[in-house]
Each structure stands twice: as structure tokens, then as C-alpha cells.
């Protein structure tokens, strides 16, 4: 099976390991992720903070390209891109006036009607748990805290799972032979872009999130968001400066666990 795949800029730069591990893991369960020939920076979630339709052009254009390249579904692994594209698609379905303007502006493209389904890879994996279990060569045998952050769950219209108490990542971990710990802070914000202008806020959040995972006996924390991954991983050094007794914790993309569990020997 081949599905259209939108990498986003970060998977081509700072999060290459996410892209590589995801493509490999999907190949193992018989799904080929076909990168769109033409795709554009989604505009990221802060583009959604205003009503300026110029910031929706990129997202809508990606959905048009998906259709043009013959696909009706689009897999988007980066939480930020997922959220942006999914919300833009919702707008395309619901806001006729906005879409009339966008379609008129993008007169070089066919009109867009909201008919592409934007999916997160975890949603695909949730339907493939049996195949995943069959592919496991080395069960994980460790405790994982599944960190969703905000963007996979909010606003609730774009949530990939039950938005207050998601379990979709936990089910994947269990299928891979690991155990998913209770993790109350799994949908707390990591501080996001504040890492640029208000680092202390992020350091504080990372301290709380990882301490909570640690208290619940997690050995590692997993995520699908390159920015959460960066904050959780890189800010631990800063946490350590403020809290010398803090014990650092490894951070992985969920796809890295799949690769690990699928590996022979």
C-alpha cells in the first residue's frame, strides 16, 4: 500500500531521524510513504493565530497537490504540520466564504473542496496493531511515558484520539512489547516556541513533565512533535543546572521505538 506523505521542513532538517525511522518502520508493516513531489512549508501553527487568509495558502496548496498527485489521504507526522494542515482542511470544509477568496486568489490551481483526509501516522498504526505485533523481533521491555503535547489533541475537532485521555500511543507501545506508564501530564504543553523568547518557562515545564514521567516509573519519554522533542531533550541540561538532583531521561520519536523493536538480533 502506498500513501501520500507530507514531511514538513523540520523532518528534512532538525528531525531527520524522525523521517528515516518512520519511513523504515512503515515499510516493515507494508506501507510505503510516498513523499509529495511538490509540497510547501505549512506555515506552522502560529499562522493560525490570525484570520489572515494569506497564511492558509500554503496549507491549502499542499492539499491541492495531494489531490493532483492522485491521493485522497495525506499522512503528516510532525504534530505542528498535522495540526496546521488539519485545521486548514476543516476551514476548507466549513468556511465557504474563506474558500471562495482563497480559490479566487490561487487562480493557477484547481479549486479546493476539503476532500483530502489529513491523518497522523499514529492513526494508521492504530489500525495495524496486529501487523505491528507480528513484526516485533525484540520486544521493548521498558516503561514509556507517551507524551502527546497539545497539537495532536487540540482543538478537539482535530484530535487524533480522545482529547482528554488519549491512548493511541500507549496502544502502540504495548504492541511493541513495551509498557506504557500512567502519565497525567501527557497532554500538558511543553512551552513550545517560548523556547526562543522565554526559555525559563520551557525549562520549568520540562522539569515538571519529566519529573512526572519519572515518578510514574518511565524509563523514557516518546513524542511525535519535533518541537516537543527539542524542548524535552535539549532543555534537560538547563533543568539540571537549576535542580542538581534531577535525573535526565531519554526522549524518542515513537517511530524510533518501532525501528528498535523491529530490528533483528
Amino acid at each position, binding site marked *: 500500500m502506498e500513501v501520500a506523505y507530507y514531511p514538513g521542513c523540520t523532518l*528534512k532538517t532538525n528531525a531527520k531521524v524522525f523521517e528515516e525511522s518512520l519511513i523504515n518502520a512503515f515499510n516493515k508493516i507494508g506501507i510505503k510513504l510516498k513523499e509529495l513531489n511538490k*509540497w510547501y512549508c505549512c506555515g506552522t501553527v502560529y499562522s493560525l493565530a490570525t484570520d489572515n487568509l494569506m497564511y492558509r495558502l500554503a496549507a491549502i496548496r499542499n492539499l491541492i497537490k495531494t489531490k493532483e498527485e492522485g491521493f485522497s489521504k495525506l499522512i503528516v507526522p510532525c504534530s505542528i504540520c498535522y495540526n496546521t494542515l488539519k485545521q486548514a482542511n476543516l476551514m476548507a470544509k466549513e468556511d465557504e466564504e474563506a474558500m471562495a477568496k482563497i480559490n479566487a486568489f490561487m487562480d493557477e490551481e484547481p479549486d479546493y473542496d476539503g476532500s483530502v483526509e489529513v491523518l497522523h501516522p499514529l492513526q494508521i498504526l492504530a489500525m495495524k496493531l496486529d501487523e505491528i505485533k507480528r513484526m516485533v523481533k525484540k520486544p521493548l521491555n521498558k516503561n514509556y511515558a507517551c507524551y502527546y503535547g497539545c497539537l495532536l489533541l487540540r482543538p478537539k475537532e482535530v484530535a487524533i484520539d480522545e482529547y482528554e485521555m488519549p491512548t493511541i500511543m500507549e496502544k502502540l507501545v504495548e504492541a511493541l512489547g513495551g509498557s506504557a506508564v500512567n502519565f497525567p501530564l501527557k497532554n500538558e504543553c511543553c512551552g513550545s516556541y517560548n523556547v526562543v523568547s522565554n526559555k525559563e518557562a520551557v525549562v520549568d515545564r520540562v522539569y515538571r513533565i519529566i519529573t512526572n514521567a519519572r515518578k510514574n516509573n518511565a524509563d523514557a519519554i516518546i513524542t511525535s512533535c519535533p518541537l516537543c522533542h527539542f524542548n524535552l531533550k535539549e532543555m534537560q541540561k538547563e533543568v539540571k543546572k537549576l535542580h542538581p538532583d534531577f535525573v535526565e531521561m531519554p526522549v524518542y520519536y515513537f517511530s524510533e521505538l518501532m525501528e528498535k523493536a523491529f530490528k533483528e538480533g
Partner: protein
Amino acid sequence: MAKKKPEMKMVRIYIMGKEYKVPAGLTIMKAMEYAGYRYIRGAGCRAGFCGACATVYRKEGDYKLYADLACQTTVEDGMWLVQLPFTPANKATYDLNKIKPDDKALVNFYPELARCVSCNTCTKACPQELDVMDYIQASLRGDIAKAAELSFDCIQCGLCAMRCPAEIAHYHVAQLARRLYGKYIAPKAKHLEERVKEIEEGKYDEEMRKMMKKSIEELREMYNSRDIEPEEEEEAKEAD
């Protein structure tokens, strides 16, 4: 009775708002010269290669603003014209030898790349019909090779930069991409390296010295009886 001269078909054009009648079929550049303008800037090769004669125009009854090269576009009746002799665009200063061709190289020198909203106005403005927005997006995600490849036919006319709502200097970004590609990424041409080495070692010095002593007539004879590369020979035949 004298034979009636065939009437020349004329079209109306507006140059910076003033109406002129010019023969149909002229290029914008020729039409402006016909109307009495003299180019002291904004004209170069007159053959669509140098990118000096960027021009913008509207057509009567059409809201769109078009962009093209004045030497390559034929005037139409009711065209409103203006020339852009220069593009004021920010150009980064760098030492190519000190830049690493990594993911961030282009965005570090041109951070305004991140302002791209994918409106595609640059692509619509490009007289070379390049996928300008696509190479800007490739630059944003650090794909230098792709940016170099997609921008290869850029003639630096600057129209993309003049139309961009995000104020990106596309053609300068692309030039940096091609420079980085050429220096660090493209496979090296072995034969070129060997030839440069031969030249440096003085293999051709003697021949050059002999040639410099020859008269114009002798040089002309040498030129006319030179070995012609097969491709060139064919072209010469076709021209005859």
C-alpha cells in the same frame, strides 16, 4: 496612379501613462524606442538572456499585472507599460570558502525566506517560467541541490523580488544556492582538474608564446583552419 502603400498596422500603447501609436509586432523595447525613448539602463543583450530589461504591464480591461522581459514581449493594443531598470534587493555578503553547505546555510544569509507564505506570486512573475516558489521552499528546508537545479535558468531580472509580498530576494538566494552547489555538492569534473593542472605546469606556455608572435593574418588563417568540435561543425553547416 501610384500604387497605394500597404497601411502599417498600428497599436496604441501607454508608456508611463502617455499614449503612443506604434507599429504592431514590435517588442516592448523596440516600441519604446520607436516612441522616442532611449535606453541608458535596463537594456542589455536584447535577446532574452541577460535579464536587464525587466518590464511590467497591464492589458486593457484586465486587472492582472504582468511581468516580462521588454526585449521578448510583443506589444498589444491598449498595453500600459513601465520599465524597471533596477531591483533594489538585499544581497548578503559572504566568503564562499567559509560557508558550510548545510541545512541552514541559505536561511542564515536570507532569514526572510521564512516569511514565504506560498502565494506563488514569484512564479507568476518569472519571465523564465521557473518554479520560483518551489526553489524558495527548497531553500527554506535546506535542500541546496534542489534550489540550484530549479533556479538554473535564472537570469537575475529581479521581477520575483519586486512582486514578493514577503520581500524575499529570490534570485540572490538562488545564486548562493548555485554557488554552494557548484563548490561543495556537484560532482567534480575530473578532466577539468587535470587540464587546470596541465596549464599550471606550463604545458601550453610554449604554444602560447609562439601564437603571440604571429601576425594578424597568420592568426586569422589559424582560426579559419582550426579543428572544429563535431557539434560546432554541424551548427556551422546549418548556418550555411
